[in-house]
Structures are given as C-alpha cells and as structure tokens.
C-alpha cells in the first residue's frame, strides 16, 4: 500500500453544494426513478444525511475488494473530497434527475467501472468494479445507513416505509448493473444479505488508514474538530457492533436522549452552513415545492 498523503482539499463546501445543485434539474422531463411522492426523496432530505454518509463509507470500506478498487484506481488519495463529491453528485442525479439524466449518469459510471480491475494485495483476490456482488455491497451499505441514521438521529421511517424505501432504491443498484433479483427490497431481506456478506469483511490496512483519517482528520481548527467529534460519535454509534469490532473501535457509550439532542443540534449547524452555499437553498425550495405538489 502507498503512503501518499491525502492532499489538501480546496473548495470543499462549494464542491458538495455544486454536487447537490447539479443533481436537481431546473426543467425535468419526468419525475425520474423516484419522484416527489417517494420515500426516497423524503429520506434524502433528512437531517441525519451526514451521519448516513459517514456510516455508509465506514461500512463500504470493510469489503476488501471494494476498498482496494477505490484505493488503487480512484483519486481517493490525491483528492478524497473530489472523489466523494463526485459520488454525491452522482447520487443526487440518480435521486432527483429525470430518467434520461439518471440513466446517462449511470451509464458513465458503468463505463468507468469497466476499467477498474485488479488484484487486492491483502487477500490476493482479483476484483472488478463492475462485479454485481461489489456493487450490491456498496448499495446495501448506503441504504442500510440511510435507514439507521434516520432512525437514530433524524425522522425515523415506519417499517412499511422502510420496506418501500428499499424497494424504491433497488433501481439505483440495477442502473449500475446489479440483477434485480439480487437486490434486497425489504428490511428483512437486507438484514439477511448483510449477515451473509459478513464473513468476507475485514479491516485492511487501506481501510484502517482511510477511515482513521476520516474520523479524525488532521488540520482542522480546534473548535471544528470538536464539532466533527459529534459527527464521528454519531457514525460510530450508528455502526453495527461487528463493524466496530472489525475496526477495533471501542463501543461508544449508549445514546442518551440528551446526547441525541446534542448530535442533532450539531447536524443542524452543518445543515445551516450547507444551506448558505450558492444554489442550495433554491434547489431545496424547488424540491419542497414539488414534494408538496405531489402530496396535494
């Protein structure tokens, strides 16, 4: 593995804001694969989003082949923020774009995945980014994290809505080449799937290094580091016990109502800062209007 340092990320907020703004179309041809009445749109706007994102990456990185693909092929080390912003932009386009834009974006990602192949130096196993098994893992970590983060820190979904969410989101994995029948479309199926993959998971050095950095980034001011601490705690609380065990993280203290409130307040601050980025407020207002119209 390399020891190339993560490079400084310039224009961090702008890139994330641009990611959302780019995904929300001005004049969509249709409501896309989800639409304003979907559970997906509701969950995508949840306050717990940053926790979901962090938890999702923490889980995804535990699959050695997924981690190797990211580590060896993408700009991850040179420009980690850019790499994640690109993923954000993709997710926003799939979520909010019309069908043509979403399909086009998925096509681009599939084309990139074609070239991401190699051998994981830890397990010695070959991998290919287009492998449906890996794509499904990334998908499952994402949807599971969205549900879990909302349950703990946002507006929890009723069980029926959670099932609906998984059924809705199946199309996003399908767009990247996962056969429909492989994709868990109920909470119980998702649990089974996650349990089944667990023996393959491990914390490789690349995962330990990348995630250690994400949880405790250097170079932040003291006060910001303290805010980050809340987010890190939230993600660790939200992680399954087995994932914490693999990383060797200590079990966090139980989530008291007071601590939950504090974390929600920190999330509110993050949300406020993000809202101030150019175009974000307008994009969100546009989505709110469409969601309201859809609900009547």
């Amino acid at each position, binding site marked *: 593995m390399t020891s190339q340092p993560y490079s400084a990320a310039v224009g961090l907020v702008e890139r994330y804001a641009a990611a959302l703004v780019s995904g929300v179309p001005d004049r969509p041809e249709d409501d896309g694969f989800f639409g304003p009445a979907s559970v997906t749109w509701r969950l995508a706007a949840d306050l717990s989003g940053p926790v979901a994102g962090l938890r999702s990456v923490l889980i995804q990185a535990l699959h050695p082949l997924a981690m190797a693909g990211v580590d060896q092929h993408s700009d991850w080390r040179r420009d980690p923020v850019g790499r994640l912003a690109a993923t954000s932009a993709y997710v926003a386009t799939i979520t909010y774009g019309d069908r043509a834009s979403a399909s086009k974006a998925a096509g681009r990602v599939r084309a990139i995945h074609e070239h991401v192949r190699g051998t994981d130096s830890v397990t010695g196993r070959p991998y290919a980014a287009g492998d449906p098994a890996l794509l499904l893992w990334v998908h499952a970590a994402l949807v599971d994290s969205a549900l879990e983060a909302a349950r703990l820190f946002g507006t929890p979904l009723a069980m029926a809505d959670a099932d609906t969410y998984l059924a809705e989101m199946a199309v996003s994995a399908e767009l990247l080449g996962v056969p429909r029948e492989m994709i868990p479309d109920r909470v119980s199926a998702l649990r089974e799937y996650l349990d089944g993959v667990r023996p393959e998971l491990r914390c490789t050095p690349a995962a330990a290094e990348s995630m250690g950095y994400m949880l405790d980034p250097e170079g932040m001011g003291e006060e910001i580091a303290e805010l980050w601490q809340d987010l890190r705690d939230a993600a660790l609380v939200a992680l399954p016990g087995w994932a914490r065990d693999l990383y060797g993280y200590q079990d966090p203290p139980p989530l008291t109502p007071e601590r939950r409130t504090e974390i929600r307040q920190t*999330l509110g601050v993050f949300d*406020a800062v993000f809202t101030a980025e150019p175009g974000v407020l307008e994009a969100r207002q546009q989505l709110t209007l469409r969601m309201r119209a859809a609900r009547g």
Partner: protein
Amino acid sequence: MRLAVVAAGGASIAALAVLGRRRRRGGRSLRVERGLTALRLAARGGARYASNAPRLFASAGEHRQQLRNDLALRTAEDVAATLGTMKGVLMKLGQMASYVDDGLSPAARRTLSRLQDSVPPMSAELAAQVVTEELGSPPERAFATWDPEPIAAASIGQVHRAITHDGRAVAVKVQYPGIAETIAADLGNVALLRRMLKITAPSQDVDALLAELRERITEELDYRREARNQQLFADYYEGHPTISVPRIVPELSTRRLVTSELADGARFAELVDGSGWSQAERDLAAETIYRFVFRSLYEAHAFNGDPHPGNYLFRSGGRVTFLDFGLVKHFTAEEMQPLAAMVKHLCVDNDPEGFRRAMVQAGFLIPDAPVSTPLVVKHMAVFYDTVRERGPRTMTGEYASAVTRTFFDFRSPLAAYARIPRSYVILQRINLGLFALLGELHATADWRGIAEEIWPFFQGPPCTPMGAAEAAWRSRRPVGTNPVPFGQ
C-alpha cells in the same frame, strides 16, 4: 493543510471546516472593509419586523411572493424542521453578531444571512391557529378585521394587519409555534454555542458574549416582555414632539402575540434615496434618532438594542416612529455611572486620568495596565469624536468605519488590556449601528450641543429648534418624571 474528507451524501459535514479555514485566511487584512458591511448586512438581514412594511414579502416581485406562499410553513413540524436544531438560534445569533462583532468571516456572514432568507412565512392557517391558541378565539373573531396575508417577517414570527373591535388599526406580531421551546432547548447546548461563537467571532470574550446573547435571545422569546418594554418607551415619550412609539394593546398581547397600534411613514431606504426627502429632513430625522438613543440611555437607563434601519418610519419635520423593542437592555444606576463619568472626564472636564479611572471602574480596562494614559485617550478618542467640541459636524460612513475599525483593532497596544464587560456588550450597537446609520444619512448637527442637553451632568440649554420643543415637552411632564429610569 490536510482537510477533512467527507462521506458521500454527507455533503454538509465539511462545510464548517471551510468556514473555520476561511476565517483564518481572512485574518486581519479584511477587517478594514468590514465596518459598514455589518450594518448593511443587518439591514439586508432579510425580512425584519416593521409594523408597516407591506412591501417586504412582495418586494422581489410577484413570482417570489407566490413562491413564499407555496413554501409557507403549515405545521409546527414545518417550523421545527426550518428553525429547530440550532437553526433558529443561529439566525438570532447572526442578527446580533452582525453588530456585536465585525470579525465575522465572509462565509459565516453569508451563512447567517442566507439562514434568515431561508425562513418562509407561516401559512394563514398556521398563523390563525397561534392567534386562536393565544386569544381563545380565531382571529376573525378576536379582531373586527384580520388580514391573513402577513405584511412583514419578524425573526421568529410575522406581522399581520388587523382592526380591533374598537376600531383601532393594529399590527399583530405572531410567533411561530414551538419556536420558543426549540430555541430555549438549543440555547441549553452551551458547549456547541461556544464553539460556534469561537468560530464566527474569534476575537471576542466568548463567555461574556455567550452569556449576554443567551439572556437577550431568551428574553426575546417571550413577547410579553417586548410588549412591556414598548409600552415603557411609549409612555416615556408620550407627547414628544418628534419621537413616537406605537402603543401596545395589552388585552391582545400575550406570550406569542404583540399587538400595537399601526404606524405609518417612509422607510429608511426612501429617506436616504427618495427624491422627496431633502438633506435638511434627513438631518432632522438623524437628530431625532440621536436624541432618542441618548435620552433613553441617560435618563431611562434603557437601550433599544435593535436600531436596525427597518425599525424606523419617517415623516416630515424629523418625526420618527420607533418600532421593535424585542431587544431592550436595562442598565442599573451602577452600570450607567461609569459610562457617564467617562464622557464627563474626557469631554467636559478634560481629565484624562479621571477618564482612565472610569474606564477601569466600568471594566473596560484592566487596572494597572502597562500603557500610558495619553495612549489610552488617543485610542479611545475616536468614540467621542463627535461630542468633543461644539459646532456642526457631519456624520459620514468614513467616521462610522473608523469607529468600528478602532473598536476591533486588535493590534492596538491597548488590546491586551481592554475588555467589554458583559453588561455593556449590547452598547456596541451604538458604535456599530447608530453611527453607521447616521453616517448613511450623512447627517449634520451640533452633536455636542445636543449631547450637552441630554448629559445628566451637564443639562445644557436647547441648542436646536427640536431641542427647544423637547424642553417644552419635558417641562409639561409631571414633576418627578424627569428622569425616570425604567428600572429592571
């Protein structure tokens, strides 16, 4: 520098990192340009309350009006999502920080101002629901006439026009439901607030500032306090030749509702730009504002901490209506005494050592600071520039900037020994708000002469026609009401 990386989908989590980073990069060089910007921001701060601002919501055109209606908050849950989890607190903080500290980074400034813009009005139904809960009957019955369209936004509520059953035209400020509880809970997270303040206002004594801001914000949540304050000012200035304060309708005012007489007049922007207003009119309006601020302070020991341009309505002859008393600070005699002593020693007695002693007594300067008294005077003189000598002086934007610049000049040899005690935090608004406002009016007056009239240790004769009219008003008042501190 290595910066945070962020999880996919967690777009906002890194935002703060950049906020802090920019602050450091901005550093001192930017301070110079920030002076008046603070006031402009406050002015722009979006939709601030003014009881007759029928254009506020509609100002950006009909489409925007429609948009706001479509986005209106319909339920208490909508309010919580929009203003809960710290966002309402940040908004209030932004409002106050815009005058408390010009050390805000541009990013912090943008965040706080956009946050204010991001709050849509309540739907007519939700506003009516609050009125019903507060008055026990729906607005159509509680009032003879009720206008369901809000005419202006308040920071944690909105203003509706109505006519009472006894025929008075009134402005009714309606608080967002649930907002007081949310903000009170969020104010309890002192650790997070302290971090936010350290990031946004790094140069301040964070704990004193935080304590003061928490107290002021908490007070603002209970409209009954605002109603009381407004009525105190209204009573105090009853019959004043140029100052007027809309009277409260107490039976229609509650914790979440303030009903006051509807006032009318030109907005600040019209006074500044409008062709209908001469410089002489602007000078008179400025004189009235100046008299209001310092009479209230020296005689009533009260300071309305929100002299935001949206809170005035102007009529000819220097008549000004003062609105919004949500942020009133009352001073004790002990707190006022050293402030008056500083002015007296510096501007009247020409006693630099006495000035310095008073500064120490007030807590502005630590005792035995290793700086010479002439240096202290040199640094502080700018604040008293307009009242050092008799004669007409013109307030300018440059002067306001100089005041602000000096205030925040952390390179000054005084900086290490200077403090702003908690009770005086709000007074910075005089420096950062009032002077900027008067500067924008480009107002000329014999400020020293007016100050001499008002200074309790001077009691000078009237020096302007308005001063004469004010003296006549004062002589008509019942014996013993001059001066009448409002008390705590």
